[in-house]
């Protein structure tokens, strides 16, 4: 690896600016993400700075299950982040849909819509856990310099219909129609 690439990787690990997006969360994870940015926990120690625009961000911190209405906006916001981009899914809902899995207006976890690099489980995860997840993401970044989800995102295509993005575990992000429960769409109690 050349000096230039090493310099870029160093800069990338030292100043990961984040964009926080609520894709249908209950606010619990959101206030814990904000608490992690505040004096008691202070994730800014790691160079993380909250930004208002996706175009300024490197890391998308996504909370909550993805509702059907918000899925397209989430994909658009993801496409607006300059590459290489990373996604931190905060909370059980963001990982799998959580208590809302199977609800008629819920698509599922964040990885149903966009590729995810790191999951932070918990309902909601404590700010310490979020910082741990962020540190893990940075460590992975320092090792490989690439997004764990790998492929560049196909951009405006709906879901992964255009090919390209693959969530960790080789599972292709589903289109809108994937039922999470049985044939009636009901999740077992």
């Amino acid at each position: 690896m050349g000096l230039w690439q090493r310099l870029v990787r160093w800069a990338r690990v030292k100043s990961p600016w984040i964009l926080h997006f609520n894709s249908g969360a209950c606010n619990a994870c959101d206030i814990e993400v904000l608490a992690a940015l505040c004096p008691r926990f202070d994730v800014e120690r790691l160079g993380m700075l909250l930004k208002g625009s996706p175009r300024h961000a490197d890391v998308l911190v996504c909370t909550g299950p993805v509702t059907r209405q918000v899925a397209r906006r989430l994909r658009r916001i993801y496409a607006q982040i300059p590459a290489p981009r990373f996604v931190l899914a905060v909370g059980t809902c963001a990982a799998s849909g959580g208590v809302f899995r199977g609800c008629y207006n819920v698509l599922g976890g964040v990885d149903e819509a966009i590729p995810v690099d790191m999951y932070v489980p918990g309902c909601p995860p404590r700010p310490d856990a979020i910082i741990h997840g962020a540190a893990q993401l940075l460590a992975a970044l320092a090792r490989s310099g690439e997004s764990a989800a790998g492929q560049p995102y196909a951009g405006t295509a709906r879901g992964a219909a255009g090919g390209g993005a693959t969530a960790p575990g080789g599972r292709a992000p589903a289109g809108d129609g994937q039922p999470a429960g049985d044939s009636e769409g009901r999740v077992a109690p």
Partner: protein
Amino acid sequence: MSRIQVPIGPQHPALKEPENFTLTLEGEVVVDALARIGYNHRGIEKACEQRTYSRCVYLLERICGICSHSHTTCFVQAVEEIMGLEVPPRALYIRTIVAELERIHSHLLWLGVAGHEVGFDTFFMYTWRDRELVMDLLELISGNRVNYAINNIGGVRRDLGPEAAEGILRALPVLEERTRYYQHVATNDSTFLARLQGVGVIPYQQAVDLCAVGPLARASGVDADVRRDEPYAAYGEIPFNVITHTGGDNLARAVVRVGELYESIGMLRYCVEHLPDGPIAVRPRRRVGPGEAISRYEAPRGEDIHYVRANGSDRPDRVKVRAPTLANLPTIMQALRGVHLADVPITLASIDPCFSCTDRLVRLAPAGGGDGKVWTWAQLRDYGIRWYGGKPDGWR
């Protein structure tokens, strides 16, 4: 002057949750505002019908993470009313303690967000630092910082030990001192005053006409508070004042919330000192009803209403939630008219909006009719997939 439309959201630095507002501007001044809600709609009310009552409590807690205790208390009160359960007084006091702690954490959170919206980030950092004191107490009492899950049908899940009681009494003087400082900032700091005073004014009559609730209504001089007007939990026994203000502007809303912080601190002290002995829960039956009940609760953002209909099985037949932000949205759309574009974030924030609470399904049927059709879970799911599946990517 020609008019332009400015879309705000679903992703916008001024919004903490995805929601869309379309503002029509004439120069710098907003002449019309339109809200498009539903980005956070998850279908919780329908999901309740698939779950047993005790599981519903945990689902309804996740309507909103900031006022999670409000929704569970409101729901369990309704179910307890249908069942005719007599909840032990100690449980009612513990519910009240958690409710007031939640109000303090929510109001501190709001003060910080208000500071952030007017570009006063130091204030944001201060209030959120002090808020951690409350979060520690909530963790001590319930075991979790957010989503406390303290409520059960028939009582509470955890007792309040001497350690927690002592912790509350120790933290209250600190919170009181900090609140005094916030009051000083909110009423004296020139930048804060310049951004808040006279902005987003809602006169008394308008607040009444548009059915505003909570601190928004009280800041316009509407003397209404469910805790006093229709006491639930232990509020009937606790002395407190309802804070009102006649200003009707953003500053009045800040002052009302700071005043409520004082009241909550006083109520907490009273609750801990007068905590009755006895059991913390009674055992409920699994099957409920048939019957129906409406329960009201003064959440930090205003009056929360839950309607529960039981059909004699172990699952509710219908649960309906009316969250305070939904009631306040028409008022704030009115308040936005006439403010400058730069004041839109703070004016929107002045109702302490919580869109994850708001985004319930509302169907407006013509009076005296409607087709009376009830959709099943699977039908709703198919409809959602069809509706969002067939739209092009840029569809809004």
